[in-house]
């Protein structure tokens, strides 16, 4: 089972904090990979908040392809960060790791954010398509103020490998996943967290309802619903679909993935709408075992469980810094000075949300909503 470590804060912090938290949960992951997503960036990217950042890995040949492609599509490179690689035993280095801030093509400067988002996503997908057959290009995210790093290996060693302990890379929201390889061959696109147009999530456990969910998402006619090298990628896409595409408030994500019983719906104030939502989104119901941690474009972080609460999850912290972890020990590592009695272990009906800047934590109960 994968281990998950998310931290949200009102101050910039290093991803090493997440990695160290993962280290305390080491028994649960086999060190087969690490995924990191950083949002609301500090350090050298702080001044590039408006500009979309492309994160990925490529070979030398892939780099040429990428440069040509971006130039051809009118993107202008503004800033580039490369990890200060330190070769460590057990990590096979690829040729070129990067996070690059670009300026939008001229024709897009005045366009709405929604249109820009579509452009960014389609660009990412095109690059994925070009680079996937020979693994010359991997692009994990292309979005303003977000960086994603993924590699195969032990998280702590990877932290060292990427030089994260020495680097000034900082962010206010960082998600990290220590991978436990189960069903799939170790493949970078199968590594959490998954990201699409400002929405991100990571999950532990397998997804028994994967196939019907994937088929439903792929039938939505949205180009971004593709990939699915991991059965957990659908959780991110359901989030994106519910909130961005359908325009539902975030709490309905819980209602979509773990719909209430008919008799329970009858008690809700929004029952008429909810009934329709449940019917129309029936194939998106998950059956666990899963705990999902995610964030939305505004910087809200959340944690939800499947309807049987088959996976652990804990949220704890202080105003200004909260940790959302798959294990309590991870919370202890990330925010040791806190009132532990106030830690939250969301149950089957709960959705824990933490507002942007780690301002306040709320438990939304699906039954009493």
């Amino acid at each position, binding site marked *: *089972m994968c281990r998950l470590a998310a931290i949200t804060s009102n101050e910039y912090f290093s991803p090493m904090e997440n990695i160290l938290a993962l280290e305390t949960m080491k028994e649960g992951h086999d060190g087969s990979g690490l995924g990191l997503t950083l949002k609301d960036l500090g350090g050298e990217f702080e001044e590039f908040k408006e500009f979309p950042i492309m994160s990925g890995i490529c070979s030398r040949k892939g780099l040429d392809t990428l440069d040509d492609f971006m130039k051809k599509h009118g993107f202008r490179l503004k800033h580039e960060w490369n990890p200060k690689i330190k070769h460590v035993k057990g990590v096979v280095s690829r040729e070129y790791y990067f996070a690059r801030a670009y300026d939008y093509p001229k024709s897009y400067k005045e366009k709405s954010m929604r249109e820009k988002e579509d452009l960014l996503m389609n660009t990412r997908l095109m690059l994925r398509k070009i680079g996937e057959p020979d693994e010359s290009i991997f692009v994990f995210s292309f979005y303003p103020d977000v960086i994603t790093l993924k590699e195969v290996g032990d998280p702590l060693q990877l932290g060292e490998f990427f030089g994260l302990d020495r680097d000034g890379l900082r962010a206010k929201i960082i998600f990290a996943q220590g991978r436990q390889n*189960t*069903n799939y061959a170790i493949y970078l696109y199968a590594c959490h967290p998954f990201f699409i147009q400002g929405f991100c999530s990571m999950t532990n*456990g*397998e997804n*028994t*309802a*994967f*196939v*019907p969910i994937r*088929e*439903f998402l*792929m*039938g*939505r*006619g949205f180009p971004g619903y593709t990939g699915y090298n991991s059965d957990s990628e659908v959780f991110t896409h359901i989030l994106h679909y519910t909130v961005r*595409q*359908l*325009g*539902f*408030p975030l709490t*309905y994500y819980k209602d979509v993935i*773990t*719909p209430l*019983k*008919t008799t329970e719906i009858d008690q809700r*104030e*929004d029952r*008429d*709408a*909810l009934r*329709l*939502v449940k*019917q*129309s*989104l*029936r*194939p998106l*119901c*998950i*059956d*666990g*075992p899963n705990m999902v941690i995610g964030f939305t474009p505004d910087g809200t972080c959340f944690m939800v469980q499947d*309807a*049987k609460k*088959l996976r652990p999850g804990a949220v704890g912290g202080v105003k200004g810094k909260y940790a959302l972890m798959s294990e309590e020990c991870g919370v202890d590592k990330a925010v040791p000075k806190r009132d532990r009695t106030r830690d939250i272990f969301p149950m089957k009906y709960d959705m824990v949300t933490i507002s942007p800047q780690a301002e306040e934590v709320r438990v939304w109960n699906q039954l009493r*909503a």
Partner: protein
Amino acid sequence: MEPATRLDHNHQLSLREFPYIIRWRDDRCKRCGKCTAVCPVKAIEPTVNVQRTVHSEGPLPQPTAVRKVIQVVEQVTDMERYCTGCGTCTLVCPNEAIEPEYNPQNKFYHYKNKSGEPYKRGGRRNDPSISTLDKLKFTRISMLTDPALDAGRHEFRVRTLLGRILPPEELPLKMVNGKLVVDKESGRFIPPVREIFPIMVGSMSVGALSPPMWEGLAMGVAYLNEVEGLPVVMCSGEGGMPPRLLRSKYLKYFIIQIASGYFGWDEIIHALPHMVEDPAAIEIKYGQGAKPGDGGLLMAQKVLRLIANIRGVPQFVDLSSPPTHQTKYSIEEAVAKMIQSMSMAWGFRVPVYPKISGTKTARAVLNNLARNPFAAALSIDGEDGGTGAAYNVSLDKMGHPIASNIRDCYLDLVKQGKQNELPLIAAGGVGKKGNLAANAAALIMLGASAVSIGKYIMQAAADCFGDEYNRCNLCNTGKCPRGITTQDPKLYRRLDADRVAERVVETFKAADVEMRKIFAPMGRSTELPIGMSDGLSIEDKAMAERLEINYAC
């Protein structure tokens, strides 16, 4: 001189040509006559034989021949009175002296066409081999990486939806204070949707079924809903419904069928203003898996007073429903209109869907329905579906197996992203070998939203003798030895409606548990795993490829 044909019995059939041969034991028979009295086809008769025995008494052989007249039970060699193998004789025999035995060498079909009249019968396709449904296995078992669920402890929702479901993008919702509410001003039609148990009782008409059989089913279904909380629905079949039921609160558990003969609809329309509940749905029958492209037939001998009244016809006339709805020539227009007018009759509060027989062209129908916002579902009845009366050739040779038909349709919907909008109902051979829940679950994982059963429930609830060795299958003749498909009070008084109801309840409760037992180890409990094809596999490469599922051996 006598012609040789008479002398050597030529042109007479030998018992070897018959599908069932009666084994009668002289030593056990006490000549009570029960078997010959009960035989529905008079295949056996009491008769006398002359027996010649040679006796010798005393120390020296002095043989004398003694002629005795003895009574025996004999099977006749008249094709019109062939033994159907039903076994009713065995059932009534107090001494286990008589039993039919299947004769695999029979040439029954060669001869069963007297007067140029092809063989007609009831039942389903006479193919006892293992069906595709029974070859499907559930091979995605949750083990350690994802815990299996506990069928006894976790909460399971084995429910499905019947009715047209709006795509999420078209839901008329708006936000008020951070909550979703239905936007009443949008004017968007929200189709009616029912939450039901995914196994339903398929269309079997009052008329085809005897009063206790139909009542038993109906009582069982009502009990399941009212007492057991299992929302099982049942389809009326063509021919209307008992008038009292139409006006009762139980109507909501019934799907009313309209077929090409429109039998019973006069009564239904007249009952409309008095209905206190809406029916569960309306099924428009265009075809039946047992006899694709063929109409219905209720033989004159079954049209007794009650049936004549419900159907609005005179007594004792053959009631045939044409193979097609005579007024329907195009799916885009006439069928759409029929769906619309039926919807309109109930103020658009009742789902209306067509039922077709399994066919290679099912996808064309499906795609038309997918474009019709009033079509509530599509029911497809595969070649193994049963019937009360059809030509043997239609039963045995016509139609399409349900597994690949449903799969094709489902995958077609997936391509359009409409798999959740138009539920598919699968029927035809579900539970043929007794594996009701497993067959139902397999069809659901192939893409069906619900399944429908007919023959299975007759067998499970009323001990129907019929099987795929052409046993019994007298349903069309009005002589059903179990009292299931007859209007003859002498026969149907054998059947106790309460017992049928009890068995219906037991059967559905058991199926519910078995479905959980299938879904639990696969880690599914909250929603029905419709289209969860990764859970299935089959030990046949070609089939696996065709159904787009795993091959496992």
